[in-house]
């Protein structure tokens, strides 16, 4: 009790000096609690947004792919997912799975009539079964027409359409017929007449999605020659093709081996999907690893990528902001530690006579240690609590309205719109622990100085 009394009154005695430190601790706590809550919220929102709009909880792709697939990246064509239908059916049958959608990314040209001439405009798109895609993802709002339910065709992003107008002088409308030009695997160019079925706006991540359009799966297969045969291939050839699919050089391993003969009577033509990814949405994200493991156990030549692997840049934006907040907070607390340490040392030097007197009267070193540690903890914990209350007020305000962010920041951080704040007790506990740790750390040196003061100092205090 006497320790607390001395500590508290000593703090009040030097209140202006201590107020400065207290304010720094309040600021540090605010930064830690509110900053962590906001970045954690951004992280959660970003995750949910990416899962709901782009990747699902995970993506299935061909095992032979050398790159992790990303619905955001269009630079490298990925290999087609083997056994797409079986894999998709298997996943669809899992109780944890809410929806799946096989899809592919590709690009082509659209030949659009402009007066008596035609203009070729670039067309980047997702190819998917529209029903499955719109059941799985929420990122499209149709502003004109219908979402590809009226028959084969394409959906155009309104931003892209505006861009066509601005750059090429053409504007597409619902019902227009255009010619899509696709480069087939064999190097030839295929042309396909497609109808513009609708115009849409992206709901989230407009900075990416403004440039992406849609094509139905059947049109896509025709445009890019995704057809094949099955039923009459000998095992040797199946094995050789499998080896070839593992590596480009694998086909040469067939040299000199008997692959058997092809039974042409059993051969049947089939449409190959051409899908390069299957996005899987789960009912509960926590089941992700279970479902991934179950799929892997089936032995299909496919791999899976988590949502964050498949959206590395966007998933990392929130993490980068979080890292920055942690860095800034660490910096603030480092400054607090040094300022506090110096202030305490100055206090101790000023109080040399007082400490010496206590020692002369019979106070042990542990008593002196307790006094200074209590002073530090009283000040810092009180400041921490004030910081927490201020943070709580901000968190609650943010919970109601969300935190408004500049649109560009919002697009990259959470896909757009105000940032919803998700309160959590974690940052509060962390802040308290950090403040206690900083307090103890900051008092180590001053306490060492204080406990080295001998009772002689009392005699010399004149």
């Amino acid at each position, binding site marked *: 009790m006497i320790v607390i009394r001395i500590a508290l009154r000593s703090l009040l005695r030097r209140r202006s000096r201590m107020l400065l430190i207290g304010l720094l601790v309040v600021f540090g706590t605010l930064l830690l609690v509110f900053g962590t809550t906001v970045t954690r919220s951004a992280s959660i929102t970003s995750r949910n947004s990416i899962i709901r709009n782009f990747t699902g909880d995970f993506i299935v792709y061909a095992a032979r792919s050398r790159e992790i697939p990303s619905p955001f990246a269009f630079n490298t064509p990925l290999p087609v997912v083997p056994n797409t239908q079986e894999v998709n059916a298997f996943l669809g049958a899992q109780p944890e799975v809410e929806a799946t959608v096989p899809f592919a990314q590709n690009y082509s040209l659209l030949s659009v009539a402009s007066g008596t001439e035609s203009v070729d405009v670039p067309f980047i798109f997702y190819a998917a079964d529209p029903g499955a895609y719109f059941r799985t993802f929420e990122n499209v709002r149709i502003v004109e027409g219908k979402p590809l339910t009226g028959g084969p065709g394409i959906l155009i992003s309104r931003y892209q359409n505006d861009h066509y107008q601005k750059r090429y002088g053409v504007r597409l409308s619902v019902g227009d017929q255009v010619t899509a030009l696709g480069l087939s695997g064999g190097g030839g160019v295929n042309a396909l007449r497609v109808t513009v079925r609708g115009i849409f706006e992206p709901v989230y991540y407009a900075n990416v999605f403004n440039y992406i359009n849609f094509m139905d799966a059947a049109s896509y297969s025709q445009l890019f020659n995704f057809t094949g045969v099955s039923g009459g291939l000998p095992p040797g050839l199946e094995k050789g093709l499998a080896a070839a699919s593992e590596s480009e050089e694998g086909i040469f391993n067939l040299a000199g081996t008997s692959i058997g003969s092809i039974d042409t009577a059993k051969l049947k033509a089939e449409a190959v999907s051409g899908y390069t990814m299957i996005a899987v949405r789960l009912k509960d994200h926590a089941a992700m690893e279970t479902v991934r493991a179950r799929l892997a156990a089936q032995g299909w030549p496919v791999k899976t990528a988590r949502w964050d692997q498949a959206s590395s840049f966007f998933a990392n934006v929130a993490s980068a902001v979080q890292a920055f907040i942690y860095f800034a907070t660490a910096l603030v607390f480092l400054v607090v530690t040094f300022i506090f340490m110096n202030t305490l040392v100055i206090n101790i030097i000023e109080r040399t006579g*007082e400490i010496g007197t206590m020692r002369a009267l019979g106070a042990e070193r542990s008593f002196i240690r307790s006094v200074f540690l209590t002073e530090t903890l009283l000040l810092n914990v009180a400041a921490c609590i004030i910081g927490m209350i201020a943070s709580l007020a901000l968190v609650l305000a943010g919970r109601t309205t969300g935190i408004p962010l500049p649109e560009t920041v919002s697009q990259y951080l959470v896909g757009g719109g105000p940032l919803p704040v998700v309160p959590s007790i974690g940052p509060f506990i962390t802040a308290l622990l950090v403040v206690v740790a900083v307090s103890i750390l900051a008092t180590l040196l001053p306490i060492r100085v204080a406990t080295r003061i*001998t009772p002689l100092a009392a005699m010399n205090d004149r």
Partner: protein
Amino acid sequence: MSVVKLVDVQKYYMLGDTRVDALRGISLTIEKGEFLAIAGPSGSGKSTILNMIGCIDNPSTGRVLIDGADVEHLSDTELTRYRRTKIGFIFQSFNLIPVLNVYENIEFPLLLRRTMTRREREKIVMRFVEEVQLTDRLKNKPTELSGGQRQRVAIARALVTNPLIVLADEPTANLDSATGHKIVELMKTINEMEKTTLVFSTHDAHIMEHARRVVNLRDGLVVGDESRSAA
């Protein structure tokens, strides 16, 4: 019965290569209940002797026995316990704890002992508060007291643990002459009433007249030891 015994105590300090002798071989015995003044000019070694007796400094050579025990080999913790239980201090600059009020300053040594209930402490503190006539100043902080009042608080604080010996280092040096005399008179009265051994240092000839025994120091040596039965 001797309370303190110094046997050929020397104390020197090294200032660079120069040896400074503070005490040059002092032997002194203080009996229980004595009211003793250590007198001498500045630099004669008065404070150094008090520091040795108060277990806050060690002799370079020689022995210091407090209550029959040699304190030379005691650890810091043991010396602290010794000071807490056997010695009371009165300082020249009063050395009250600035954040505690009069009552709390006097109570402080008892709190360090951690052996008494609040009620027991209160009883003892109030007894000494009355002895030093500060009952109307209990809630005052040291800054709200005069020099004489502060020294009276220090006296009560030194006596409250019923120590074997009370050491007062120039207790009147920061007081005006009249107050100084009153403080020494108060110390003397308490010495008579409580039978507490009281040793104080002074270079003021008028103040030392109150003592029953005066030990004179000069240049770290005892140059006189005079008892005054009717002081």
